[in-house]
């Protein structure tokens, strides 16, 4: 039995009923008096000069109120989470197909659509680059003048001496792995409504916004106003997965510019096609790994060279690729490491944050490589990994000693592989000789993952708990619900800490005018960071209430417990008061029953030149094992069963942890066998879900979630993280299982029909990036 009252229990999500009954309000459900509709004209070519932009005809169409272009922007022309390089509207040059050229604002979306066709743009096409290797080759066209060699960023990491390490190795393998461009595929396309405020130059923006504070900063910059003139209110989110950050900031900014120009509310809702064309994606990586090991199976050296396709703008590339450089060797002790990760500009759709954030790519490479190396060594992949796995006190590639938390890698690997029957099945299936019909295989992959932002940036978050005179509670948080269950988790933490009932808490949607800037809801940091802030706030208020209860119950403060809606004397629980009566009394005594909680992450460090340092303050460990069936006649891979073991520190809500596992495994499966945004010379070909295929409920295999709890010293009640680790492991587990089933090693994602059957894809409708190197 859990020693907690609310935390660590599988409580139903507080937003479940409103979501399944369709009552939840999404951005497109909002309507305001006099509201106008904005429709965006996008680039015709991925890279072109704009010679002339004539909007007069469109402006004359009855029902059109304004046509907005770069010339209407009062403040910053461009935005970006790291560098402000993405224009809200392009002025002279398009860099990718999703660029906005102009926006019609009209009485109805239909009129706006018709007006789009009346805008005349004259382009001069410019030379293009779609391939990262071409972009970094000598003499390549320079896409951005401040970035020589088209390099967005370069992260080196040096540990030991790889030359020596390879000399000491008996076996050295070199392999190249590549991953594809991936769409977040949230069910709700991007949307925002900007409403001009009563006071001059103020604006409120409602939207499907992952990070209200980022959106506020961008909107304020574009309007050229101070932060307090912009209020952002987050609506119910129809998914985000990292995807509704800078792209939505740009949409909010367009709506805000139009709202202030017309003096009326302006709504923008992307169609699915626009969403897929405009929104940033997960980076495709080209990863060259060289690895050396001794005959008895000890890793000696790894040399890693990675090119990440950033597409047209910087976006989150420096942060995404930073996680890659930290974790590129995987959760293994490697004494000598040389890693170089580059973000590279092209004219492809730009890439940014997506669930996993630079880890799914490298884990596909490194976990495929571990199996390949084990095979070369004649070792069982499980034994080989266990021999090299991080253990308590191991040293990472960046020189960090893992001694401040429980290093549970071996535990999760053993649990996941046992649940799938890995060892026995692998041996049995390795005998498969069939080149026809259906064969089975098993495989697994393991990872370690730094929690929260790490040395990436400022890491702090706030929450506000306010108890009302009747004992009910408002809870505000600076980190936002993205559909992951944050409202429920935070309410549980607040209830546990206050000692009130879970039902007494009302979680308020995130509003930037109420709560301090807490950074972004990213990097699986909400529970650890925001949860700690909630706990801090609740604790402050509890102390006030305990003081009042102590007085009324006539017992020392320290001897009173607050739990489950009651406050009682430990020795004599019959001496007790209802939480609500304590609140009423405290109010009557004029006590402050509200508090802001704040949590700042422990210190971390990073040396940019050597890639050494304490990258993250704590880590989580995960392992997913899969059993698959491969049809040798068609190349079809069916995932039959997945076991997913994740150390979450402490499961604040085991049901939502399992929910994250089911969702993450499903997304990981899409990454592994189905999904790929196809670009042909920078032009998006897969524009809707009839061509961009994600798993349906029929494809989801049996999933066995295994929650491992080793409480952490930092997170609330020992909680760490679960959101992203669930989505980074299945693709390599499937690739390893396919090898076990039919002896085919596939080093490029996804493992779709043609690639599994033939080893490469024949489909012609692809850009250079899609061409397989056999």
């Amino acid at each position, binding site marked *: 039995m859990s020693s907690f009252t609310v935390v660590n229990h599988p409580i139903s999500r507080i937003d479940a009923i409103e979501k399944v009954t369709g009552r939840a309000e999404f951005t497109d459900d909002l309507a305001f008096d006099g509201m106008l509709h904005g429709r965006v004209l996008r680039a015709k070519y991925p890279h072109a000069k704009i010679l002339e932009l004539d909007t007069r005809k469109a402006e004359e169409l009855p029902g059109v109120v304004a046509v907005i272009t770069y010339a209407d922007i009062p403040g910053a022309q461009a935005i970006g989470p790291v560098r402000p390089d993405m224009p809200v509207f392009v002025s002279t040059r398009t860099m990718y197909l999703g660029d906005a050229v102009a926006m019609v604002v009209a009485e109805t979306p239909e009129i706006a659509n018709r007006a789009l066709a009346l805008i005349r743009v004259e382009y001069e096409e410019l030379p293009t680059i779609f391939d990262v290797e071409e972009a970094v080759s000598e003499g390549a066209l320079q896409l951005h003048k401040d970035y020589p060699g088209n390099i967005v960023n370069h992260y080196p990491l040096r540990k030991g001496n790889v030359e020596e390490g390879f000399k000491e190795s008996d076996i050295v393998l070199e392999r190249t792995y590549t991953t594809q461009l991936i769409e977040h595929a949230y069910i709700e396309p991007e949307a925002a409504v900007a409403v001009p405020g009563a006071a001059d130059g103020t604006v409120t923006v409602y939207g499907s916004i992952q990070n209200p504070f980022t959106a506020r900063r961008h909107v304020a910059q574009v309007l050229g106003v101070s932060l307090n003139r912009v209020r952002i209110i987050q609506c119910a989110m129809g998914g985000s997965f990292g995807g509704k950050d800078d792209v939505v900031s740009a949409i909010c900014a367009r709506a805000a510019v139009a709202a202030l120009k017309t003096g009326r509310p302006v709504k923008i809702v992307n169609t699915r096609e626009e969403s897929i064309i405009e929104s940033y994606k997960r980076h495709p990586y080209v990863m060259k790994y060289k690895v050396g090991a001794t005959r008895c199976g000890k890793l000696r050296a790894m040399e890693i060279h990675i090119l990440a396709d950033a597409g047209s703008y910087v976006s989150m590339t420096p942060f995404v690729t930073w996680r890659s450089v930290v974790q590129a060797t995987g959760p293994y002790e490697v004494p000598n490491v040389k890693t170089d990760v580059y973000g590279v500009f092209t004219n492809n759709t730009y890439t940014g944050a997506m669930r996993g954030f630079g880890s799914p790519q490298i884990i596909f490479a490194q976990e495929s490589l571990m199996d390949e190396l084990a095979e070369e060594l004649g070792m069982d992949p499980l034994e080989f990994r266990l021999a090299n796995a991080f253990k308590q006190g191991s040293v990472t590639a960046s020189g960090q000693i893992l001694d401040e938390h429980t290093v549970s890698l071996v535990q999760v690997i053993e649990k996941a592989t046992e649940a799938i029957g890995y060892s026995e099945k692998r041996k049995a299936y390795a005998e498969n000789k069939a080149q026809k019909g259906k064969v089975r295989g098993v495989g697994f992959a393991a990872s370690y993952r730094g929690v929260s932002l790490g040395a990436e940036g400022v890491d702090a978050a706030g929450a506000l708990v306010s108890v009302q005179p009747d004992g009910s509670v408002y809870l505000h948080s600076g980190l936002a619900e993205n559909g992951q269950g944050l409202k429920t988790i935070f309410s549980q933490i607040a209830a546990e800490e206050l000692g009130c009932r879970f039902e007494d808490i009302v979680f308020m949607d995130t509003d930037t005018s109420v709560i301090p800037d807490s950074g972004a809801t990213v990097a699986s940091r909400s529970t650890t960071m925001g949860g700690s802030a909630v706990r801090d706030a609740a604790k402050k208020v509890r102390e006030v209430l305990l003081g009042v209860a102590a007085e009324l119950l006539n017992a020392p403060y320290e001897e009173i417990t607050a739990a489950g809606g009651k406050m009682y004397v430990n020795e004599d629980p019959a001496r007790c008061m209802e939480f609500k009566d304590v609140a009423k009394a405290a109010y009557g005594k004029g006590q402050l029953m509200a508090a802001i909680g704040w949590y700042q992450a422990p210190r971390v460090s990073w040396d940019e030149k050597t890639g050494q340092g304490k990258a993250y303050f704590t880590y989580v460990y995960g392992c997913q094992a899969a059993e698959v069936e491969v049809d040798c006649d*068609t190349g079809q891979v069916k995932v039959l069963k997945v076991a997913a073991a994740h150390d979450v520190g402490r499961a604040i809500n085991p049901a939502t942890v399992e929910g994250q596992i089911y969702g993450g495994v499903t997304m990981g499966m899409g990454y592994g066998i189905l999904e790929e945004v*196809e670009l042909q010379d920078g032009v998006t070909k897969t524009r809707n879900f009839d*061509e961009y295929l994600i798993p349906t409920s029929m*494809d989801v295999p049996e999933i066995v979630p295994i929650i491992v709890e080793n409480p952490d010293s930092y997170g609330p009640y020992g909680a760490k993280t679960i959101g992203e680790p669930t989505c980074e492991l299945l693709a390599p587990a499937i690739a390893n299982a396919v090898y076990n089933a039919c002896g085919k090693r596939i080093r490029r994602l996804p493992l*779709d*029909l043609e690639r599994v059957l033939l080893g490469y894809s024949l489909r012609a*409708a692809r850009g250079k990036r899609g061409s397989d190197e056999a």
Partner: protein
Amino acid sequence: MTGINVAIPKSIDETLELLEKWGPDAAIIAGGTDLVVELKDKLKSWKALIDIGCVPEVRGIREADSNHVWIGAMSTHAEIASSTLVRDTAPVLANACAQVGSPQIRNRGTIGGNISTASPAGDTIPALFVLEASVEIIGPKGTRIVPIESFFQGPKKSVLAPCEMVLGVRIPKLDKEYISFFRKLGQRKSLAISIVSVAFVAKCQGPGLFTDVRVAFGAVAPTVIRARTVENAICGKQLDPKTAEYVSKLAFRDCVPITDVRGSKGYREQMACNLLYEGLLSLLSCSEAC
């Protein structure tokens, strides 16, 4: 999309009048699962839609006579897949309908719509080919009956004239000696347009021995096709797994696929052969019984 007229006729005569009145400016809407996509993508623009959901003459699944089953154009995939009559006398069609899209699509999409769309990847069509069904067409000049194989002229092209519509399909019943299968290959388990599909019907003369062999492929040519080379090779020959593999390989002679986003030409050719082979193998293991 402002101002599109929707008419809901109550009889076939009324429908024909509307078709004549509007001509090519009107489209029939049955389940709408193809048409609404076209409307949204603005592939076509119509002034009027004629909803045939309330026309009794295009509804129902029944015995036309002792040798034929009649399926009204407005019958949904779900209705056909669960009809005992179809399952008993034309199981290959029930099987194909059961593999269309998803439950939602099967509940709305109709056989008339599937035929009229004339996609080479339409899943009911290979089944109708091997059943040697005929399409009943009604127009201003009355009814005409067109063998299913003559109905299609190319991708999205058929012999239907603007003022005509499909009334239903007539299917010769298969007796108990016939054996059949329908297989489709898609990238995932549901909501997947066929990369290749194959339908097979034959009279089972004993284990591995078939006559009156009919094989049709979808998505490997501008229209669904009958694979006569394969049919001739299977007919009357004693099949075992080895010969099954050999005859299946002949399929590529009948197929002229293209490369598109779902699959390449080369892959499709191989898959036509392999899908047929997998189907034949499964027949060999169960035809021992007949």
